[in-house]
């Protein structure tokens, strides 16, 4: 199938060499296709089933990638306290959103309420002297239940989580308690 002049021309003409190499590759491809075509039916089926299975497993693994995040593994991007966070929002909503939204925030604040509504554990941090200024609502990770049960209203706490944005209050998800300063 290959031209007989092949050995003579190597090193002489780059384009011709490339042409010959392409021919060689084409030949190999044909051989491979022939190999598959000549295989008996059972081997063919096994190969097809195996390929589908492998693709399926990869796809399933890709889909079932768990959304659970451990916040302690992530690096803190912003350090702040509850009052600063809220006042930055009151001053300039857009700026506050671009500064904090979807960021990993470590926040210091005073606990006003701990709620166990909807089988969730949520810590409310005071965000201003007036109640109308709202709170920072921290939705705690499920493994934090024991730690959260130790804190009381009025405690000063340090919480790390993902800041999600503002409604009337600031909202943080995936929170963990880092430290508690009692009777500060």
């Amino acid at each position, binding site marked *: 199938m290959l031209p007989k002049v092949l050995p003579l021309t190597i090193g002489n003409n780059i384009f011709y060499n490339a042409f010959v190499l392409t021919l060689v590759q084409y030949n190999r491809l044909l051989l491979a296709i022939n190999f598959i075509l000549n295989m008996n039916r059972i081997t063919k089926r096994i190969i097809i089933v195996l390929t589908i299975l492998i693709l399926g497993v990869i796809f399933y693994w*890709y*889909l*079932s*990638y*768990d*959304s659970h995040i451990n916040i302690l593994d992530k690096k803190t991007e912003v350090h702040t306290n509850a009052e600063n966070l809220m006042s930055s929002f009151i001053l300039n909503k857009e700026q506050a*959103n671009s500064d904090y*939204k*979807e960021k990993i925030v470590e926040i210091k604040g005073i606990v006003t309420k701990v*709620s166990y*509504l*909807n089988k*969730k554990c*949520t810590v409310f941090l005071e965000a201003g002297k007036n*109640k*109308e200024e709202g*709170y920072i*609502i921290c*939705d705690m990770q499920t493994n934090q239940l024991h730690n959260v049960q130790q804190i009381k209203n009025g405690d000063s706490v340090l919480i790390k989580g993902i800041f*999600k*944005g503002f*409604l*009337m*209050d600031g*909202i943080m*998800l995936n929170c963990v308690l880092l430290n508690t300063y009692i009777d500060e």
Partner: protein
Amino acid sequence: MNKLIKFLFVFSFFTGIGQNSEQIIARQGQVSFFSYTSVENIKAENNQALSIIDFSNNKIAASMLMNAFIFEKALMKEHFNESYIESDIHPKATFEGEIIDFDASINGIQTKMVQGIFTLHGISKELEIKTDIDSSSGKFVLTGTFETFVKDYDIKVPPLLAGNIAKTISVTFRFEYEPYEK
């Protein structure tokens, strides 16, 4: 005439203050939605929905952050926020409406219709939602379920994934209110 306007202004100002004490608030409203198809079931939950009811005119308002929905799988959340809802452009879903024939003085469960405008993905639709209002525990608790169409909100689902997402999405909500002090 001028005096009358002044009087009305002052009067409305005072009644305005009076109304504040008749407001109740839910900061931890639970809103979840489900999409059931033969390919996969998708469920997401938001536990930080905000809602306020004003007893003086039976008006109700609710809003929630789209990026605060929790999904089982990270990929679903990514698709939801980036492709479907585009939560960077439309960060919130809101509802503003009125509870029809609501009587706050009734103790126990009453079923009422809520009529209002629901805004999602920048598109507003008029909705009528049946809700159960339970006040027997001393707190007002609003619960209900409604169905809504994906296509109503201009949400583009790529043809490849069309089988994975239901055409109608069922939404469930539960709001537990407490007095709103200002």
